[in-house]
């Protein structure tokens, strides 16, 4: 069954003992798993979905090394500390794990004198708080026009921050998890925590796949962080789910913007973003709306607001160039403070239970914040003895489309499946897809996030029949069992003619 990795249990409903249980395989859970795998600690990570990073992480705008905006990132918020401390850690981490990372810098647009005054203050604060990092620079109107010719003319200039970069947060989560696994972490996908009971020196965690006994828990369940905490009365915090929307532009117009471009929000906490991605698309947004969690539908109102945002920054964008959009949740710690505050703390009531949630920008904050979680675990009594055998580096799946001609030649010579292009929009080969499946992709989306097959302008119209066939072949399952994203999300419900023969099984 393509339903994730059940190997740890062998059979269902077995009992498993572990020292630290990490709940959640988003960027925060996988970062802690990887950090913890440096030590001689028996660690298990459970993730409800059949793959990593499918919660808020996959909805991210992919911008990292933020924090230069010291009007939003202020000293009094702990969140800022993690974001600032992560700035120098992010690039080495991505390089170590062979995850795309591109430093592109950000431009905060100055639209009037009022904003100019604010930005002067921001620059002063940044110089004070981040003295060791490359400073901001003023960009005049003409220079701005030269470096970003498609931007609105309605600006005085911009404040340039050289630090911000883009990465691929889902790939980073996968790489962190793969590296943790290689260093001994037990990883269980498709495993949802349903209840937790507390013994004297351990927790009994009931999951959909069996019982897990653990001494420590790191609760990195993202959008459900408070629900998990409530299972053991460790919910001494409130979170507000705020739905956030992002639009995606075709690669064809991928050079319309070259930096992360932001504008001063009209309300504090509002997020106004346009940025290229490491894969050459443009992301834009981010309309926000307090919402009941679990509803990932994008609404007409949000897409209209998103489009209005990008139009105000980049007037020549056409609605025709939008190839996709998606929504995710940013968990506010405190509704008044918005995303600025986070939950990174040992429960005050329940020993050995760490709550770990960063609504925004959790990807940017992950490297330093996960180190903080290790400190919290050890102050709760976890022994952290370093392993000598820790292997820090990881290797990405070869990226055929980005390879040079020479590298392409070599890949095809080694394995002729690299000469078979399956996804034409993103130029993804069968070789890459097979490698992704070998490394743990079990679904269409799993293949998509690892290789980009189906992410291009035709959104899988061409390649989905081919990817489904390869998945079925490699996983050795009937093609009707292939799912989009695990569980009941089967792609094909019947065989042709099956309905005519009368022998119809209801879809599971």
């Amino acid at each position, binding site marked *: 069954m393509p339903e994730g990795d059940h190997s740890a249990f062998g059979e269902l409903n077995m009992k498993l003992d572990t020292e630290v249980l990490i709940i959640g395989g988003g960027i925060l859970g996988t970062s802690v798993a990887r950090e913890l795998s440096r030590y001689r600690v028996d660690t298990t990570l459970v993730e409800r979905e059949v793959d990593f990073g499918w919660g808020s992480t996959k909805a991210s705008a992919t911008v990292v090394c933020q924090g230069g905006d010291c009007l939003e990132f202020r000293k009094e918020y702990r969140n800022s500390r993690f974001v600032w401390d992560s700035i120098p850690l992010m690039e080495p981490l991505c390089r170590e794990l062979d995850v795309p990372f591109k430093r592109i810098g950000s431009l905060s647009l100055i639209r009037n004198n009022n904003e100019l005054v604010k930005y002067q203050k921001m620059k002063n604060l940044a110089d004070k708080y981040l003295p060791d990092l490359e400073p901001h620079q003023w960009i005049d109107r003409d220079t701005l026009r030269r470096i970003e010719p498609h931007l609105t003319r309605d600006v005085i200039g911009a404040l340039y921050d050289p630090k911000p970069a883009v990465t691929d947060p889902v790939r980073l989560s996968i790489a962190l998890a793969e590296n943790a696994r290689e260093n001994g972490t037990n990883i269980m996908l498709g495993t949802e925590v349903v209840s937790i009971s507390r013994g004297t020196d351990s927790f009994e965690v009931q999951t959909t796949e069996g019982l897990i006994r653990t001494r420590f828990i790191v609760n990195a369940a993202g959008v459900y962080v408070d629900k998990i905490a409530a299972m053991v009365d460790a919910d001494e915090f409130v979170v507000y789910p705020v739905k956030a929307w992002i639009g*995606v532009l075709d690669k064809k117009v991928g050079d319309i913007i070259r930096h992360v471009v932001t504008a001063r929000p009209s309300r504090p906490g509002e997020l106004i973003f346009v940025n290229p991605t490491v894969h050459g698309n443009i992301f834009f947004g981010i309309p926000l709306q307090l919402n009941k969690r679990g*509803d*990932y*539908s*994008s*609404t*007409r109102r949000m*897409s209209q607001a998103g489009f209005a945002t990008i139009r105000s920054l980049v007037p020549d964008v056409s*609605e*025709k160039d*939008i*190839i996709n*959009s998606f929504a995710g949740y940013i968990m506010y710690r405190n509704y008044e403070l918005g995303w600025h505050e986070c939950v990174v703390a040992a429960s005050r009531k329940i020993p050995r239970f760490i709550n770990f949630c960063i609504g925004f920008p959790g990807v940017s904050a992950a490297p330093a914040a996960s180190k903080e979680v290790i400190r919290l675990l050890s102050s709760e009594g976890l022994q952290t003895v370093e392993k000598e055998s820790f292997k820090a580096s990881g290797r990405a799946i070869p990226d055929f489309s980005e390879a040079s*001609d020479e590298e*392409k*030649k070599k890949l*095809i*010579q080694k394995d*002729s*499946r*690299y*000469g*078979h*292009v399956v996804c*034409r*929009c993103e*130029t993804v*080969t*069968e070789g890459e897809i097979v490698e992704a499946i070998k490394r743990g992709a079990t679904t*269409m989306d799993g293949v998509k996030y690892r290789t980009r097959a189906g992410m291009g*302008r*035709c*959104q899988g*119209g*061409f390649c*989905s*029949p081919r990817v*489904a*066939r390869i998945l079925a072949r490699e996983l050795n399952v009937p093609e*009707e069992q292939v*799912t*989009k*994203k*695990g*569980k*009941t*999300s*089967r*792609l*094909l*419900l*019947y*065989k*042709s*003619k*099956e*309905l*005519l023969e009368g022998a*119809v099984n209801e*879809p599971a």
Partner: protein
Amino acid sequence: MNLHEIDVAVIGSGPAGMAAAVRAKETGAKNVVILERAEELGGLLHQCVHNGFGLFYFHEDLTGPEYAHRFIEKTMDAGVRPMLETMALNISPDREITAVSNKNQFLKFRPESIVLAMGCRERSRGALNIPGTRPAGVFTAGTAQRFINVEGFLPGRQVVILGSGDIGMIMARRLTLEGARVEAVVEVLPYVGGLIRNEVQCLHDFDIPLFLKHTVTNIYGERRVEGVRVAEVDSRMNPIGGTERDIACDTLLLSVGLIPENELSLTAGVELDPVTGGPFVDGARQTTVPGIFAGGNVVHVHDLVDNVTWESEIAGESAARFAMGERIPAWAGIKLKAGRNIRYVVPHTISGNEDVTLYMRVREPEQNVRINVGDIAGKSELIVKPSSMLKIELTSEQLKKLGKNVTEVVIDCQKWGGK
């Protein structure tokens, strides 16, 4: 055949590619190849198991695979060399092709001329920005067609189809024949997007409900589609409050338009017409890059394969002439301009010395009109619709009437009696 001795390379082996290659060979080009990324020649024709192909070209009513077969035989008989499972990744402005294949591996070569025949792709959900969740069970009509007719799987049993393009209507019939229930075909415009013959034979004959001036305003279901919300739209295509209704279904098919597939053309520096989405071409089907020609759906979306074939034969012939040393002046001549109620005209320019067929589409449906080509020719039509391509044949005799110094001719769609 040595890769470095190729005269004409055709990219794509659908009806356009095969017609171009065969005609290139017939015109006298020695070494003609077709690059095709699939395992066999024929392109999308293989999944079009319905009939209606070749009525004009062969004067027979063939299915897609039969039409493909005829041309595969012609291609082989003509001595065209197919390069299968070979994908062109890049074409440089001086016509160097970079391609990969799992047989021939990594290739770089420079043919004397190139014909672009990559066809088109379907518009996807993202491009429409349909609100709602992102479950499994949303397919473009063509992808569903492939699943059913080629791969042997039925996506679901209760289906709503958004858009009344030809593939959507043909799939409505196919799904019904397969035992699925098509709950509705939903079209945002006040008229059907595809051919009238498909509306009659695929929808009316099977009692499939058609909702004109309606759209899908929401998709339900976390993992698999569970239903859609449909609403009527006003004249500006905005949903009208109070008209919404929910329809339960496990599958949503999209048949909302085709887009010429020109990413490869762009790598060569070929200029595209924002209206057609395809290259600007002259009467010889030469693009703005000398030696690169184009034909079929890569130039503009056709509704009949016969026209694709004819148009691509022109491209194939010109490519052969170019390969044999004839210099076809790059994109010169008389400009054709889309006038009243004309969305576009292909080709974009003509030489004025040769017989030529003009293909065009109107913007809005109209009745009792006359299509005027400047004041040298015209054609009356009872009904014109954006979904039906119009064709006007001009002889060199007629073109002579234009006079020597004319640089532009306007094509208008005029109401009867009007100028």
